[in-house]
């Protein structure tokens, strides 16, 4: 519950930064996705249920700053958070490549769902342009940023939720 409550101001701030600041940091037309990074980072450090909640909250904030139908990004991020929660408890969870693999899947699914939504509402989308100018560059930047994001998420969870020790 505490993690979800903390998520509200954090995700609101990230959505604002996504619109006002990160939209200028571009590789072709791709940008780092701050809210997606936060959701995936929170899930990878083990707060999977909260991460799903973060997906809903963060997606709703993003929808406020976008022309896409309200709720569509929230659905996409909930699905992404649900998907990336599956490695929890698996033996390869601690492997360094795992977060990169998770981010690769998460970023691809997130953008594919975004493209799908716009196609559904009739916005013209050139799939080749979307893939080469948006999806791939965004995914690349998300991959670069996921490891530091996990470090931050780890440090936050250890401060907020220190592991219980039996004496």
């Amino acid at each position, binding site marked *: 519950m505490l993690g979800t409550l903390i998520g509200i101001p954090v995700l*609101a*701030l990230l*959505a*604002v*930064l*996504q*619109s*006002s*600041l990160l*939209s*200028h940091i571009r590789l072709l*037309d*791709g*940008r780092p996705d701050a809210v997606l990074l936060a959701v995936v980072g929170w899930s990878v450090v083990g707060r*999977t*249920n909260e991460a*799903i*909640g973060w*997906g*809903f909250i963060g*997606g*709703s*904030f*993003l929808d*406020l*700053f*976008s*022309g*896409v*139908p*309200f*709720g*569509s*990004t*929230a*659905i996409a991020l*909930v*699905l992404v*958070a*649900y998907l990336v*929660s599956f490695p*929890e408890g698996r033996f390869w969870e601690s492997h360094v490549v795992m977060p990169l693999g998770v981010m690769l899947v998460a970023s691809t699914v997130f953008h594919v769902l*975004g*493209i799908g939504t*716009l196609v559904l509402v009739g*916005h*013209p*989308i*050139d799939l080749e*342009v*979307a893939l080469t*100018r*948006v999806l791939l560059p*965004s995914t690349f930047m998300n991959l670069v940023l996921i490891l530091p994001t996990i470090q931050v998420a780890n440090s936050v969870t250890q401060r907020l939720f220190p592991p219980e020790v039996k004496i």
Partner: protein
Amino acid sequence: MSRTSSRTLIASALIILALSLLALSAAGYLQPAESLVVRPLSALQSWTATRYAAIRDFITSPSDVTTLRQRNAELEAEVARLQQQVIGLQEQQAEATILAVLLKYAREQPESSYQASKVIGRDVSPFLRSIWIGSGSDQGIARGMPVATDRGLVGRVIEVRASVSRVQLITDPEAAVNLRFQQSRADGVLAAQLNGELWVDLIDQNAEIAQGELVLTSGLGGGFPADIPIGRVLSVRKRDYELFQQAVIQPTVEFDNLDIVLVITNFLPVGVSDGAQ
């Protein structure tokens, strides 16, 4: 209950909630709530955008000096050329003054009124080319109002909230602008490409379009006021077997560096009622 089924339950519940919000938003019931949430966030957005612009200007200022010197040399050459034109134009001015007085009787052109507004953000979806400005219905902004800068047309307001509005840029593939070439007087329609290029389509095959020619809004269709600059012709594609020719244009506005825009508040496009959301 296992952790996996608990997660599935949470995810399903939240997706159903999001779908409900989507339906409510589509029906327009969420507008007041959205405005309520956006108001404090837009203040934060505006603060961030201002700080970002200050830092960007500080970082890019040394390279701007070189650009400005180069630009100055270009403008000096332009001044020399224009001085020659001025002599010819002074002769024509005498005639034009008389014609203008006559025309004034026939057609009174109202002064445009503007609302200056800061650009506070961009659409978070990389697939939509729109910006958020820090003025909304509280400042008299209405859906459909054209947006420009001193350099040319930026776009049109397509979503209005109490304190912010969303402006669809003319570079968005969904934006359609009727335009006219300044010298050849040929009409066309702006067709923004998904890769960011600006094309002009539906140009008469017989029109002689020159490279560098200025492209202005035509005012046809009532979507935008006439004579707002849009761009200059970069290249023309003319094929005998096609019904129309096309041109690629370079926009006069630098869409990546928009800080302040002007909303033309006394113009509402045909088909949009005053105050419509």
